């Protein structure tokens, strides 16, 4: 057993989203809701309490007509690595309901441990966490479509994107059954990645140079996974949360929108440490 564990290289699952290709169609949001039994209510127009593990934000360049421009930015949980796994939310959870897995790089959320203090929501700089203020209600008949691989949550707990961790578990089960300890790149893909009609989302192991995510983001894994591709950025890079979600944009104003820069500040400086 010990021998086996030794040879298994740690994974660092992450995502690269190409904002040039993203059309803002929202398929990732619904693919996520359908996969993860996300509840819905009569009015979902208050976006602060509307639960969306994946949310597509609309960015504007702030210019006037006709120079105005918009860009969509899908935001799942960033699965921050922080400093050696000290993600902002993991550090504050008093119930160990959220944890950083050094094996996969995924930040978990264990609903049955969460008692709803919402410290993690305060700590998360990305608003990726949502609180169940109400018990979920599925209209008559609709519980039939609930996915047995993800447990429905109840009032009083926090939930967030899990990188479809149940898919990882299913893929691993299958691999073990077939006598393998490693997964192929396409064996474990999140629901949003699979659904995106524009093919804008790429998912895989950031530690594996063979994987597309690695080739797109060129992460500097010795320095928190800082992207090596000049068109790639991460949200709020300077907080040091070291997110595992990377964005590609050929437009500078979009890249600058990823963090709070002063007008005359050199954006590229962040990435030249």
């Amino acid at each position: 057993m010990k021998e086996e564990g030794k040879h298994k290289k740690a994974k660092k699952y992450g995502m690269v989203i190409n904002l040039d290709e993203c059309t803002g169609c929202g398929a990732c949001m619904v693919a996520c809701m359908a996969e993860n039994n996300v509840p819905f209510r009569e009015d979902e127009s208050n976006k602060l309490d509307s639960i969306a593990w994946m949310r597509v934000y609309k960015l504007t360049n702030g210019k006037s007509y006709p120079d105005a421009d918009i860009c969509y930015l899908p935001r799942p949980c960033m699965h921050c690595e922080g400093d050696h796994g000290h993600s902002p939310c993991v550090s504050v959870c008093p119930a160990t309901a959220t944890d950083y897995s050094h094996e996969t790089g995924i930040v978990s959320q264990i609903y049955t441990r969460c008692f709803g203090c919402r410290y993690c929501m305060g700590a998360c700089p990305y608003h990726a966490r949502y609180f169940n203020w109400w018990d979920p209600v599925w209209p008559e008949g609709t519980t039939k479509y609930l996915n047995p691989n993800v447990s429905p949550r109840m009032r009083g707990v926090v939930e967030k994107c899990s990188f479809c961790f149940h898919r990882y578990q299913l893929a691993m089960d299958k691999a073990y059954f077939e006598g393998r300890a490693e997964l192929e790149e396409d064996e474990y893909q999140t629901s949003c990645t699979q659904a995106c009609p524009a093919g804008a989302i790429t998912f895989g192991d950031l530690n594996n140079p063979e994987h597309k995510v690695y080739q797109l983001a060129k992460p500097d894994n010795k320095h928190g996974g800082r992207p090596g591709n000049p068109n790639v950025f991460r949200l709020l890079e300077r907080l040091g949360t070291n997110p595992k979600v990377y964005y590609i944009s050929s437009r500078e104003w979009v890249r600058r929108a990823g963090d709070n820069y002063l007008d005359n500040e050199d954006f590229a400086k962040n990435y030249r440490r």
Partner: protein
Amino acid sequence: MKIGRRSFLSFVIGGAAGTAISPLPWKLTDDSSIWSQNWPWTPVPPDGEYSQVNSICTLCPGGCGITVRKVDNRAVKIEGMKGHPVNDGGICVMGLSGLQLLYGPTRVKTPLKRVGKRGEGKWEKISWNEAISEVTEKLAEIRAQGEPHTVGSIVNSDRGTVPNLFRRFLTAYGSPNYMTMPSMQDSYNMTMQLMQGVTAQVGFDAENADYILSFGSGIIDGWGSPVRMFKANSAWKVDGKKVVQIEPRLSNTAAKSDEWIPIKPGTEAALALGIANVVIMESLYDKENIDSQFGFDAFKELVLNGYSVEKVSNITGIKSATIVSLAKNFAQASNPLAICGKGQGSTPGSLNEFVAVHALNALVGNINKNGGVWALSDTDYIKWPEFDLDSIAENGMQKERIDGAGSEYPHAKSLLNRLPEVINSGDGFLEAIFVADANPLYSMPDSKAIKEAFDSIPFIVSFSSYMDETASNADLILPNHVYLERYEDVPTPVGLQKNIIGLAKPVVKPQFNTKNVGDSLILIAKALGGSVANAFPWDSYDACLEETLGSKWDLLEENRFWSDSNSKVVTGEFNFYPDAMKSLTNFSPVSIEGSTISFPLVLIPYDSIRLANGYIGNPPFVIKTVEDTVLKGKTACVEINPKSAKEFGLTEGRSAILHTPRGKAKVKIHLYEGIMPGLVALARGLGHTAYDKYLTDKGCNLNELIGMTEDPVSGLDAAWGIRARLTKV
């Protein structure tokens, strides 16, 4: 033992420290959270055997392949089908939410007969036998009076077996009034007819085009076959191909294009001819081949005399230099492609615009060429036996259509948009109407007029699976299975340049007491007897479908799609100057309703892929994705340029009343720098009055605010907007 101060404190402090070190508090918080979450009403989805079923999505004419994941007999997730020629694994918000339609609360669960007033929502549940005989009795009565032509039907499109069964039924019964929901396809089909002399479906070889000039087509907003266009758009990005979007509002398509060119709405045809002017003036076209083509001299004269760059610049509000560079880039690209049909193409638009844009394609010689526009003859797989008409049917079929298609407007096949005016003015009447796969009371422009027309039709039968606006105003509902419960053929998706037939199949057993609309129709025909029954020799719809698809059936059952390897391109002589072009001699923009004095602004609709506006209502997941700058609470937001907003004293988030000559609605203001000053934009797909609490009364229905403008040549609706006013509340 005596308890002193010292020992008491030691006990308390020691106890506290001990407890803190012990796992007890942590165990307690854990347990308490488990106990307090173990509610019986939180569902635990049962596990079971996993399986996958492939089918075709029919929620829009996109024709995507889907893979449905099942656990035992429950469908739990819809995903895009890998390897399908249209979507290859991709899927849209609507397709993903299909299970909410299947299991959702808006289903009509059994045949219903109205007992209260129309639209009151009082229904009696009846059996299928009763439902069929209700319809049959009424139809037999109308027939006995020798008035079969007063029965009409409205279906979503005129392709595929179900629409053709309706057409066959009406013909055998004796009515020419087979109507379809209008769309840009009507205009494109007519353009093909007028300019190429062919009856053909239009196909766009988008994947191979390298310069795409879009006259307001929402390439990534749901135009054509949506997922296919998303994929094409991504491929263009990777290969560095250029997309130019011409429209007055920065739509998603405009934002993702390489160049956004705002244009005064309604002047698109002038721009197309202006571009043609530059191409001709600078001889950027294949003179040898084009100069000799039919009608080119007249076209050249029209373009050179009436559409100089300066003049077009004045008309469209686009700088002369931009027009010139557009023309040069377009003509010099190796595979240029010009497309039109605004937004999702759910309205037919002005025929002028279609012929002008199509002339551009012909001018650069991309008709039936790689990366160009293809004229395809639809795969001719529906070959049903001939049938005889009895004398009543023959008399009925000789009557003119109520909507004037084929008579007043010789090129048109169906003009549903004219129905309200004809009925409401007393020029015609219908005794009964069948509605299937369509929701005209919601999705036709000027919905008040169409409601009024429907009010005067004595017998309305809906075949809807959902309690939509038309169904809730019907007299009888014969609910259809939803698409995941039935077999159905899916003809070539809109805009594809190769013919594909899809076969949707039942993924789950029918959940309720519903019946395939094809079966209902066969039963009604058989009950009517005589020549009507003889026209329907099949025992069931499934038998009819299997017979129709013949040798393709086995392959379709296995793959779900069948590609027509010899897709037929139809060629005719190209005519550069069809009749429809003549009215362009003196350009005037398509006029819209309302005076500029009382309505200083112009309302334009916009389409979003996150809001369906056809006969399928948005399921809860889809509504959940709608931004709070589009819908806030129960109020829709309108987009307006901050400059215009300032003029009327409006600020972000402020409530206002939007007035148009057709109606008014409460809205919220959303300031948007991406819209031309003077315009107000409202999303299509909101403001349902039927369905469930997740959809009802959310925002306002654009169709209630907008009127219709009859195109002088096609007779189709050419309206692109309406004049409007915003007042503070």
